[in-house]
């Protein structure tokens, strides 16, 4: 008997719960993907070390909570400037040297950075699984028969707010316009007097600040360990491709689509199938709409 085929009030509860799970999981994916899409879209660099900055954010939350009893939601405010500076430093020390190099060189560099950061974490903090358990991590909100984890609801709200803020920043501020101009044509932007190096530095720092913040926010939900980033990073690439490179709102919608495929696929066909489904989707989008589901044609080459 396939539970998915039963009808009745129980079935409505199931659909409602699956809907809620999709939204909340999508929120987490969006939180992680916005920083990636920003760096990807403006700098044209695939940052394979993205997941490791997420992991560092999780460790920041873990140590602040363990050593000083600080709630992750408080750490959030400290994390934004800290990771902005981490992003700046990483750009100056690592990315600046390869920003004009070929994609292959950039890929090797960021993969190297990823492995290096994982092993730094392993040496400093061992491979143990660690946990952040603030009071809100075990609070469950119930509406009707559906259950919401409070930490997940907060992560979702912040994900939406972050996406909207970045979207507005890119669309309506002078710096945002300059960033888009740099993405569209680096040489022309330079001729117009734009300091592209400064723009890249800013973009990278913003992207890392976003993912570091995401790490702090997901820390009450998932275990903290040196390779925690790998659990999410593959998904973020799917999200970024679905949503269109550099498209913030696309990233949010892409996250929800990936989460829906994962949740509904797991429910109906079994968890073993979920990666098959979203990677098939990933390939189809790359083949038929390389600019992403919501991007304009040609944007994959040009920029936003």
């Amino acid at each position: 008997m396939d539970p998915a085929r039963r009808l009745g009030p129980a079935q409505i509860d199931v659909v409602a719960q699956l809907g809620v799970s999709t939204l909340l999981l999508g929120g987490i994916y969006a939180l992680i993907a916005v920083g990636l899409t920003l760096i990807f879209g403006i700098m044209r660099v695939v940052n394979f070390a993205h997941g490791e900055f997420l992991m560092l954010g999780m460790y920041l939350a873990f140590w602040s909570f363990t050593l000083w009893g600080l709630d992750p939601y408080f750490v959030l405010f400290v994390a934004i400037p800290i990771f902005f500076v981490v992003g700046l430093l990483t750009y100056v020390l690592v990315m600046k040297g390869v920003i004009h190099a070929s994609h292959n060189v950039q890929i090797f560099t960021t993969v190297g950075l990823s492995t290096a950061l994982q092993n730094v974490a392993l040496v400093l903090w061992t491979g143990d699984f660690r946990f952040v358990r603030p009071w809100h991590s075990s609070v469950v909100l119930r509406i009707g028969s559906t259950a919401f984890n409070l930490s997940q609801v907060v992560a979702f709200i912040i994900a939406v707010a972050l996406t909207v803020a970045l979207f507005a920043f890119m669309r309506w501020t002078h710096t945002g316009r300059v960033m888009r101009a740099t993405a569209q044509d680096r040489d022309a932007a330079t001729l117009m007097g734009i300091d592209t190096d400064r723009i890249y530095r800013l973009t990278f720092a913003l992207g890392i600040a976003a993912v570091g913040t995401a790490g702090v926010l997901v820390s009450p939900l998932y275990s903290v360990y040196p390779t925690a980033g790998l659990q999410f990073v593959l998904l973020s690439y799917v999200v970024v491709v679905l949503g269109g490179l550099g498209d913030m709102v696309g990233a949010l919608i892409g996250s929800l689509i990936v989460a829906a495929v994962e949740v509904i696929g797991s429910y109906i066909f079994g968890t073993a199938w979920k990666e098959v489904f979203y990677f098939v989707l990933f390939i189809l989008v790359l083949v038929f709409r390389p600019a992403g589901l919501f991007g304009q044609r040609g944007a994959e080459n040009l920029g936003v």
Partner: protein
Amino acid sequence: MSRRFFALTVATLVLGLSGWIAAVHGQSGEYKIGVLEPLTGPLAFEGKRHLEGYEVMRDLINERGGVMGKKLVFAVGDATDPTAAASEAARLISRENVKIITGTYSSTLCGAASEAASRQNVIYWETSCVDPRFNKRGLKNVFRTEIDGTGFGWYNVEFIAKHLSHRFNMRPNQLKVAFLSEDSSYGQGVTEAARARAKQEFGMQEVAAEYYAFASTNDFTPIIVKFKQLNPDIVHHIARGNDAVLFWRQSREQNFGFKALVHAGATGYGSPDFGKALAADGNGPFVLAEPGPGFKVEGLKADAQKLERDFTDAVKKRTGTEPYASHRLAGPGLWLLKLVLDQAKTDDLDPFRSAVMSMDLPVGSMINGWGVKFAENGQNANERVQHYMLQWQNGQMVTVWPEEFTTMRAKWIPLGAWDQRK
């Protein structure tokens, strides 16, 4: 002045010479074996514990005369993944000249490592992996002291049928079981063995069998929602890492009420991290593993009792905690290797192999309660590798079954409401 100089020179020479003699006759009598463990990467936290178990037992062995009259020393290799396991095995053999390799904690590593060892005809002594394929390859150089995964499934169903079902006032064939497992060879091996025995021997009703990739599963709610509708009495969940914590936490969130959850092995629910993550919220799950608190040492043979106490003390001294399952797999596994080497008096494969085959020790002979009787395929007989059911009770994993081996008793049968398990 010159006499004093002369005396000093003589003294120095004598001291140096005696040191040299000691080096030749005492310390140079070392016997080196290769130890392969995942010391970096996702399996590192358990790999390091397993290595600790080896090191503690190595020191105890050396206090008791070493192996074949020589001091036992290790050449350690880091087996992060199967590729590294194979290349590190090759390095230990060619650079460190070891004739025996032991390890590797994980079922994902032992296949590759033992394959590499057998290519060079080196003895491979596995003490913790349970992959059922390990001893089905016809390799003459490969031995395993630990049970194979099918034995884990066998014990889990034994516990469900003989200990749980009557306490639910149900017959085994009335029980509805949902099988959930991570999709490595370990998870699949245990789960398939449990499914087969549950169905064929006891007629239990299988309501679901789900596999998932543990490294990329971020949400269990779809599975939990599905399981809730199927309403199983037992969830048989083989977990691997934080998937255990995630499934348990989300089951609580979804108010998923089952009567018992049964797991096997030192990972997932069997890892101390589960207790650290959930404390009293983690009360209830059963874990088939090596004995923990509550274990009656008096159930062991006399010489094993003494060694058990020394081992436990040494682990406590080193780590500050009771020995974990990984310690209790590595320690006795290494001790058994010492017994075999002492009997064979050589590490040549043929005499070593006959020494292994001639061992016949009843249950209770090793410090974790194991007995010894190897089959031709190099596997210690499953019925001699006594296993125990442990249960999470207020942040501690305690031994609850078989009851004749323990002072502690299982609680929450059946599991009540989520907030009633204190």
